[in-house]
């Protein structure tokens, strides 16, 4: 007989930890947390810089410190944790869901009522952005480079070019500089930086590392180790401009060219995904369109701050313990919005504190965000400045608003 849990959380990073803790706080709920790696904490384990937890704890923690707070809390709960465990199969069964995973003890089968997917995200690769050339050593994603430096204690290179001004790219520029490498420059194909403004200042300006916008790496050269990269200017559609190529000598190229929510298991469960977020389509309780399957954290959409990752984990964990018969209404986007989460609202559950995250599609100033239901404004807020790298969060109180047949619209427009 397979062991039965009310809730199985997949992923022991910040989202999964928060979800498991929250779920276990309801009396009598049995929770299994399945973590792929040997230790809990997810990517936080290798993020030894500070700045985590400012929103949540009002202090700047390092990644491991932030994770440790949750790991300690988890230890006080009755959550069963299975480490170094990898889910190989997930499907609906007679008792909710059948889950198979492998770990050092063998192939394990469990059943559960609800699944919370907290599987995080992965990095886009060199191939995904078509950087051509040789297949030499020295080309790494920022996460891999971070692992080499912070976990394995080795240097991925001494003269480093960083492509992508996303936060991990900026953090790695600083990190490698502190370890004695020469960071030649950070190159960004977009005309604006991709990372948080505070990171541009703290990681680049403070260390005199140049940021080259509208430029990208188009080719790499090297027999065994990387020897040089070709940099090209790009046009407004981010296509390389012929004739603008320059060669930069370096022995390492670090790629921080975007993150993609990891949704292998969601796919297996037939969970519909949002093309904009690349994560699941969810309601305000983080429940996907597949009943009983929840998604949170970076698996749902790529967050800018870990504090929000934990928050969505708690939303999922708190909601998954309740029974509900859902009635979903869609949320429609208008104007220059990159995305908004949730993409649905469940009319039958609590609407007094709907947390919505969104990002603008461009760098915009003097914008008004309006949430309206059936043409009536339910929420409005003016933003002086919106930057795509900075995620925005709003809390909506929609109690008393008739959602039954009214269309919910989120609109971003000039003030």
């Amino acid at each position, binding site marked *: 007989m397979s062991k039965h849990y009310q809730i199985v959380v997949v992923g022991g990073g910040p989202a999964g930890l928060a979800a498991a803790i929250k779920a276990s706080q309801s009396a009598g709920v049995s929770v299994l947390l399945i973590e792929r790696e040997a230790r809990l904490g997810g990517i936080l384990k290798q993020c030894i810089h500070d700045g985590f937890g400012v929103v949540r704890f009002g202090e700047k923690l390092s990644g491991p410190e932030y994770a440790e707070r949750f790991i300690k809390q988890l230890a006080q709960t009755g959550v069963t944790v299975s480490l170094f465990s990898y889910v190989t199969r997930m499907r609906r069964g007679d008792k909710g869901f059948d889950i198979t995973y492998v770990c050092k003890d063998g192939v394990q089968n469990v059943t559960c009522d609800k699944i919370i997917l907290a599987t995080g995200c992965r990095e886009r*690769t060199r*191939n995904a952005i078509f950087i051509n050339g*040789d*297949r030499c*050593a020295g080309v790494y994603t920022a996460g*891999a480079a971070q692992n*080499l430096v912070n976990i394995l204690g*080795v240097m*991925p290179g001494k003269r480093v070019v960083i492509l992508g001004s996303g936060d991990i790219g900026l953090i790695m520029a600083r990190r490698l500089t502190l*370890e004695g490498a020469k960071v030649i420059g950070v190159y960004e194909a977009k005309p604006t930086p991709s990372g948080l403004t505070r990171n541009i200042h703290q990681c680049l300006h403070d260390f005199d590392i140049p940021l080259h916008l509208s430029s990208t790496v188009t080719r790499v050269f090297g027999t065994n180790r990387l020897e040089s990269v070709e940099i090209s200017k790009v046009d407004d559609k981010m296509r390389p401009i012929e004739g603008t190529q320059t060669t930069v000598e370096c022995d390492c190229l670090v790629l921080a060219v975007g993150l993609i929510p990891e949704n292998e298991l969601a796919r297996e469960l037939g969970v519909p995904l949002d093309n904009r977020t690349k994560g699941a389509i969810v309601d305000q309780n983080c429940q996907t369109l597949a009943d009983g399957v929840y998604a949170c954290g970076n698996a749902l959409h790529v967050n800018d701050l870990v504090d929000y990752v934990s928050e969505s984990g708690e939303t999922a964990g708190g909601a998954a313990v309740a029974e509900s018969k859902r009635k979903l209404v869609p949320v429609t986007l208008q104007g220059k919005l990159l995305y908004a989460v949730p993409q649905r609202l469940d009319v039958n559950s609590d609407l007094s504190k709907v947390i919505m995250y969104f990002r603008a599609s461009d760098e915009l100033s003097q914008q008004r965000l309006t949430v309206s239901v059936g043409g009536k404004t339910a929420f409005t807020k003016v933003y002086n400045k919106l930057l795509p790298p900075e995620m925005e969060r709003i809390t909506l109180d929609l109690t008393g608003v008739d959602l039954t047949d009214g269309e919910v619209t989120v609109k971003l427009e000039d003030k």
Partner: protein
Amino acid sequence: MSIEKIAAKVEKRYGVRVGVCQDDRSIILSGECNDWNTIVAIGKMFADAGTGKHVVNKITLAGYVEKAERLPAIRDGALDNTDWDVVVIGGGISGCAVARELSRYNLRILLCEKHSDVARGASGANDGMVHAGIDLKHRCNKLRYGVAGNAMYGDICRELGVEFNRCGQYVIFTSKLIKFLAKSTVKRARKHGIPGVTIIGKKQICEIEPRVKDFAVGALYVPSTGVVSPYKLTIAYAENAVQNGVKVSLDTAVLGMKKDGDKVSEVITNRGTVTAKCVVNCAGVFADEIAQMADDEYFTIHPRKGTDLLMDTNASGLPTHCISMGPTLKSATHSSSTKGGGIIITVDDNVLIGPDAIEVPDREDTSTVQSSIDSVFQRQSACCPSLRKNEIIAYFAGVRAPTYEEDFIIERSAKVPNLVHVAGIQSPGITAAPAFAKDVAQITAEYLASCGADVQLKPDFDPVRKAPVCAKKLSDADRDKLIRSDPDFGKIICRCEQVSLGEIKQAINNPLGVHTVDGVKRRVRAGMGRCQGGFCMPLVTQTIANQTGVEVSDVTKDDIGSNIAVGKIKECNR
């Protein structure tokens, strides 16, 4: 046509004055030209003239400085003063298969490979199709060995523990006329001994492969086509050779030869000088240079690059069968040096598309270029329009090693009696290797016997190489049992391809002694999935360091010098 007439034609067409001379085996061309494709075209004109001779094309590209050959960054005396019956040069599919077939005999065999692993040239960078041979010309080595090799695949892959899938292939017709003309292909296939080739109708092909329903009028079904992992097969051949006593020396490049009369007596490498009773040249793109070292140059290899693309397994709109576009009326009347590639479902269930064929002067130019990726995708997606370019997860280029005659050279040299050439091996080289390796072993053994050596088949030859464990392909019950016997098989390191620590350790402890990150990747697929090693590469690197007792910063991606890291932190001086 006489060669003088061809020379005149060349001058008229290209404005290039070619110096021409010939001996009993070859036409030798000299001169200079400022376009590489023209140089290749000229070579082909002479090869196609019907003289029956090989072409040695010494026309140089004006202003081109040949890139220095990549040589291993090591020099020692590891092999110095060793004696061998046979030295096999090159650890591609040819060299490894030949070494394994030779290991049936009581011979001392050395295989030299200049890279840190086998299958590093074209054998590691092709689509792995086991061709049926439907498009091959009558009376050529490619057809002879291709058809024979294809038939051997089931058995050889079983013996060597390598996955093989005889999946068949569908050549899609978009024109009724072409479909009608394909009857001659069926007839020719029958004549060439290619089994089961038939023409199927529109309804049938659209049921089998619905992705083609908008344009297919029928298809040629070729049931004997199969797929194999070309590098895994090469590795398996090499490992079985080692099992049977062959010495595989990696990071070992042949730098020269010494002769005694007309025979090769010594082979000079960066690891020392060795004696050889017989030498087998399986040097791929460098086969002509090896021949030259023995003063036996009678053919020229002109490197031809091909690029393949790999699709994400979760991509939408993937086909479920190996398909390729049949000829169009236009292409049918033009001869071309590739079969045009196609879409392949690999043994690991990846969809692979390609390749193209680009003549390049640099024999080791495996760099990828966007123009090839774009053209391969555009061309192949014609027979599966639902493919999406943004779902390509990887691409790679390999360099084929054709001669100007475009056929395999598999023979003992007429001029250097103890030198056997296995040259000009390109598609269908993987298919043909099991067959020609047997012949090459026999030619070699017979030659040694004719010199008075006591050459015997070894009674203890073991043809079986155990397949490495692939835990994810086991049933739950078997996987459970495996993990209970060794918990490392339950610890997943590569999340995309579900590769466990146990499998990675097994790959590191391989019989060839390859301890590289890419070596692990080729053996067990760690790092081949959609994250392309972003997550597992540091763990694999660390595992190699632990298993082999070296520092993490000493672990290499591939060849010597391709270190993953440049040193420890806190020890980095700018």
